[in-house]
């Protein structure tokens, strides 16, 4: 069964360092998303991406964050200069337009980011 894969599963970084989280969405999906969950808090929407551009972003997704699909298979989230409060589990997801309105996103297992 096709699945969304994320790397790394866990990354520890120093405050101020750049981090790139990688995701391989399901191959025939066209919408891609990043969500995050700070420990003990809700899963929150960060950004959605379609046709090589951002469709929607939350107010969390400020200038420190960027996304790109560099090669047609990977979907990356970059945090330019990490802060302590960026420590969270980051989930990548993808969806198929044929499932529009179903809310059915396919999620990866998450990348845990720890900022020291």
């Amino acid at each position: 069964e096709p699945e969304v894969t994320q790397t790394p599963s866990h990354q520890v970084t120093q405050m101020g360092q750049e981090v790139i989280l990688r995701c391989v969405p399901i191959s025939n999906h066209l919408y891609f998303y990043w969500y995050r969950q700070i420990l003990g808090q809700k899963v929150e929407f960060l950004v959605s991406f379609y046709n090589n551009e951002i469709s929607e972003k939350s107010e969390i997704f400020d200038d420190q964050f960027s996304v790109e699909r560099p090669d047609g298979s990977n979907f990356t989230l970059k945090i330019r200069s990490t802060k302590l409060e960026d420590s969270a589990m980051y989930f990548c997801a993808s969806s198929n337009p044929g499932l529009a309105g179903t809310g059915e996103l396919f999620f990866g297992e998450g990348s845990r980011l720890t900022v020291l």
Partner: protein
Amino acid sequence: AQSVTQLDSHVSVSEGTPVLLRCNYSSSYSPSLFWYVQHPNKGLQLLLKYTSAATLVKGINGFEAEFKKSETSFHLTKPSAHMSDAAEYFCVVSRSNFGNEKLTFGTGTRLTIIP
């Protein structure tokens, strides 16, 4: 704006007994509601969905949920708990815009199964 409230952060039941995980929603229009499950060290998996068809929705692994508009509720139930049901459960409301699905999650309910 839309939101969901999960009324219990932690539920413990004995194996073989019924499960009830409670969720209330708030939405200015007819909502699409979902339950997602997260097993330890796994990703988020869709358990079931309500999208304005039948109010009683059946999902995977014997779970079901009933949409009650008068009570603004979408509680998740299962007649008989199994050890493999131990996981975190999220009630979710979705806003769909031409294929762009934006999910708003509840705070989650951790289900523990007592042998």
